[in-house]
């Protein structure tokens, strides 16, 4: 960076020149030919990157979902054929069900647990720093490593879990090796890997509950449990709702866990929607079907995201 149309010492002068004016007022424009070009140049990276890598793929997915292509010859329009292919594939129903099961189990296990931990941690004040580090440590582990780690723990031959449970006379359990338990095993792993972030967010939200509310409740003679129920949770409701939606949006896109741990097995019990998209495109080479399923998933996610953004905005302005 070259120096200097502004001498360094002029910066404090600038700062001293601050006078109040209505917030958000637009900065007066520069004069000359540059004034049109400057914003264009600054926006160029944004427009290029979002245009090429966000908008164009989205539009292309939409187009591709109505086309058949081997990517060599020009694509042909096939109407809703690709969507029909999806509906004809018995695996689609399974993938949707599996994804919903993952989402449901993740809410069941993964949603209350961080909240419970956060409430407990905020009540027990000592060692807060240590607890925070411990609770967030799994999140710092790269997801793929976490998944491989759990694969090792679940190992049917000498896995940690079966060895430990064997010591107290339980098991051996099949974990990933049975259609009945594989999905739940993935959810346990995902919860371990993801809960820490939620705990930290809940802790921040809990810290923002005004202490006067607690004091008022205490004067009324409310028990700890009642205070939790009537003061803390209502105050937390917005953040809980947002976290729930965020979790649903994320779990709808679950891929790494089934891809690395089970490759969709056993018996397709862990084939998820995203895994199916991946297989259509990169195993079968059916880009039309992959695009059609992508578009369908996108439609669902867009609705959820719209709700999410509405909630965050509504809450942010409160």
């Amino acid at each position, binding site marked *: 960076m070259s120096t200097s149309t502004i001498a360094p010492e002029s910066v404090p002068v600038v700062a001293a020149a601050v006078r109040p004016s209505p917030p958000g007022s637009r900065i007066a424009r520069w004069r*000359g030919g540059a004034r049109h070009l*400057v914003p264009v140049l600054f926006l160029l*990276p944004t427009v290029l990157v979002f245009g090429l890598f966000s908008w164009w793929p989205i539009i292309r997915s939409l187009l591709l979902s109505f086309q058949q292509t081997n990517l060599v010859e020009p694509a042909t329009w096939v109407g809703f054929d690709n969507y029909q292919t999806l509906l004809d594939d018995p*695996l689609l129903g399974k993938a949707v069900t599996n994804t919903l099961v993952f989402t449901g189990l993740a809410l069941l296990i993964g949603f209350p647990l961080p909240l419970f931990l956060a409430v407990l941690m905020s009540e027990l004040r000592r060692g807060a720093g240590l607890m925070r580090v411990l609770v967030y440590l799994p999140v710092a582990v790269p997801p793929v490593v976490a998944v491989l780690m759990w694969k090792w723990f679940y190992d*049917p031959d000498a896995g940690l879990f079966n060895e430990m449970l064997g010591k107290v006379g339980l098991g051996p359990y099949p974990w990933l*090796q049975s*259609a009945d338990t594989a999905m739940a095993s993935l959810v346990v792993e995902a919860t371990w890997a993801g809960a820490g972030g939620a705990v930290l967010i809940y802790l921040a939200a809990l810290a923002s509950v005004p202490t006067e509310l607690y004091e008022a409740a205490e004067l009324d003679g409310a028990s700890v449990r009642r205070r939790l129920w009537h003061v803390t949770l209502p105050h937390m409701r917005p953040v809980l709702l947002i976290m729930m939606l965020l979790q649903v949006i994320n779990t709808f896109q679950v891929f790494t866990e089934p891809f690395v741990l089970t490759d*969709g097995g056993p018996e397709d019990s862990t084939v998820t929607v995203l895994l199916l998209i991946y297989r259509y495109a990169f*195993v079968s080479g059916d880009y039309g079907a992959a695009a059609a399923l992508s578009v369908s998933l996108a439609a669902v996610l867009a609705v959820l995201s719209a709700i999410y953004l509405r909630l965050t905005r509504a809450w942010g302005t409160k």
Partner: protein
Amino acid sequence: MTESVPVSTLRRRRRRVVAGGGALALALVAGTAGCSSGSSGSSGAGSSGKTTITVAGMPATTSPKTRQQFLDAVAAFEKANPKIKVKPTDTQWDARTFAARLAGGNAETVLTVPLTEPPGLIARKQIADLGAELKALPHAGDLDPRALAPATAADGRVFGLPVTEYALGLVYNRDLFTKAGLDPDKPPATWDEVRAAAKKISDTGATGYTQMTVKNTGGWILTAMTYGFGGSMEKKVGDTYVPALLDGPAEKALGQLAAMRWQDDSMGNNHLRTQQDAERDFAAGKIGMMISTVNSYNRYITQYSGKPADFGMAALPQQNGGRSTLLGGLMAVVSAKATPAQRTAAVKWIDYFYLKPAYDPAAAEEQAVAQAADKLAVGLPTLPFYSAAVSDPVNVAIGRHTNIPTGNFAPYVAGVGKLEYQVEPPVAAQELYGALDTAVQAVLTRKDADPRAELAKAADRLGPVVEKAQAP
């Protein structure tokens, strides 16, 4: 104050902004443009009248001798064909990326692909018909149709040439056989014998028999087993192929696995197995037997450091009147985007590099020397591409440099001679394998899974796929 800013300052300022704000954006575009000049398969004849082809299959840097041999061959080939320029790449075949690379004009002109791939590539019109070029090759008349079969379309057109081919067989650990009181020189020849041997091996604590089950390998191996039970996976009804999963042999094969898993418990505990982890555990001496390929011996030695003496190989076990095995290996194919000139040049290269060592003893010997120097296996029992008159002298030449325990492959060579080679299911093989993965996993992970019901589920799923793949 602003009014007094001289024009020259403004201009200077503007230039600086250009350099700052837009610099990255411009650099990015320039950078990507720079990358695009890499390997473009579709760029045809150059200005000098030279035809440029890109060829995949150059050995990785981990095998320096064979890599150098490849580069030397490229140089010699270019010298012999001054109008052809060859750009080699060591990009590995990847089914995921091929179509998209082809579309972007970045796929190589010549590719080497596993035998599972050509039918799908032919159906999607992504590789070129080589019939005309093939006729002009030396010894074209002596080419064994069996070697061409995996890349021969239903109408007889040929889309690929063999690189290396072998029949799938039973790979077994000779040391575990001895420990279990079995004779390593008399490996199982029927599936009942496999079952008995697996039981004995599992009594010693190792896994008796292992089946790959994920990423389409479950269906692949089950297909080989079904051939061994005298069946096939698809059959022709009228003019179209339909799944033949419920004809009996596939059910027997699956039933065999169920019996070994649940009655004998001789298949270990892990039933979500990739080819890689099965091969790794086999090399580590944890697995008694599995169905695998001849060239898995190369990985056994180089990648997993297995003991050569423990590696045993027999022909694919047969039962119920079966007498055939599944063919595996690699074929060379040419991108559908290649121009006619490139196609001719490509077939010349395939002939020079892959076929010549199969009909010319001197070329064969040269290749064997380089492979031996890289500690790659020389002398593996592969399928000859040419009739005996042409291939026998070649085999003698290679035989001088054999570095494998030939005796350990003797049961395989003896057994395979009596078998017919069958190719992959002709329509939608990968989808078929995927659906059968599910069936194999069901039988191995759920005690009450009924082989027939699982195959029926797979057939239901495949029906529309197989039909769509054959739609005109």
